[in-house]
């Protein structure tokens, strides 16, 4: 029984967050300071999503040449920088991970 309540509650809070600003009346202007701040949301949040996958191992910072994910991520960043093609970035990163994995 509880599980259905939990699902309903999760759905409600998640949709409320997604809808929050989008469903405000169209006439409301976004203040200019907020516009400036919002420009940085994609770069900040997207980085916060992938950075731990590269930098942490079992919740601990792992900065060394023995960290294959960090190295493969660096390769992917380079490929993304140069070509800006998502599929190429993913392929290069996976290939690099397997290569570094095999080397160590």
């Amino acid at each position, binding site marked *: 029984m509880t599980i259905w309540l939990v699902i309903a509650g999760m759905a409600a809070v998640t949709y409320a967050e997604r809808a929050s600003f989008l469903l405000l009346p169209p006439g409301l202007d976004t203040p200019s300071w907020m516009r400036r701040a919002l*420009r940085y949301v994609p*770069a900040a949040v997207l980085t*916060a999503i992938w950075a731990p996958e590269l930098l942490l191992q079992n919740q601990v910072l792992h900065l060394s040449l023995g960290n294959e994910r960090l190295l493969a991520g660096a390769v992917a960043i380079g490929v993304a920088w140069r070509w800006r093609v998502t599929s190429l970035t993913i392929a290069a990163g996976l290939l690099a991970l397997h290569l570094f994995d095999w080397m160590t």
Partner: protein
Amino acid sequence: MVASGIPPLAAMLMSLIVFAGASMVASAQLLAQDTPALLVIVATLFINMRFMMYSASLRLHFAALPFRWRMLIAYLQADNVYGMTLARFADHPDDPHKLEYFLGAGVPIWVAWQLAVLVGIVIGAGVPPSWHLEFAAPLAFIAMTVPFLRERAMVAAALAAGATVVAGSALPLRLNLVLAAAAGITAGLLFEKKA
């Protein structure tokens, strides 16, 4: 999720109406530990806090659309849809077909996501871990992030967010993600002023 004790039907329903992966995995873990229902819902609220920021930034592009369309846009929001859409809008700020672009990203991603969840529920973990396919997710997010890093302030925002999320990784409820967003925005604004 099913592996941690959620009935298959409930898992599928959760995927359809919550549609937010991180909070679904977290709730499965919390429920397996007999966490009270209210706490699971509060955890979801924090984990999905970033959607409020997505909502505010999508509003800049879609505020003029009819209410129904905005309701749909709100539902289809996801990290990758947001990343792709905003990257496109940064390059083409006056694109007359922003809604079409958003739906073109959001609808296929929604379908693929639901199918993947269904397959996961039915067959369970089928891909050997040695393929490292789980690493494709961060790589895809790297591909979405890099095009934004064209100016100093954006790089500062990304570096600050990355450092904060890692420094705060021990915090509960994925609070480090919210803090990272705040740190990133602050760093971006600071470097913008000096430039």
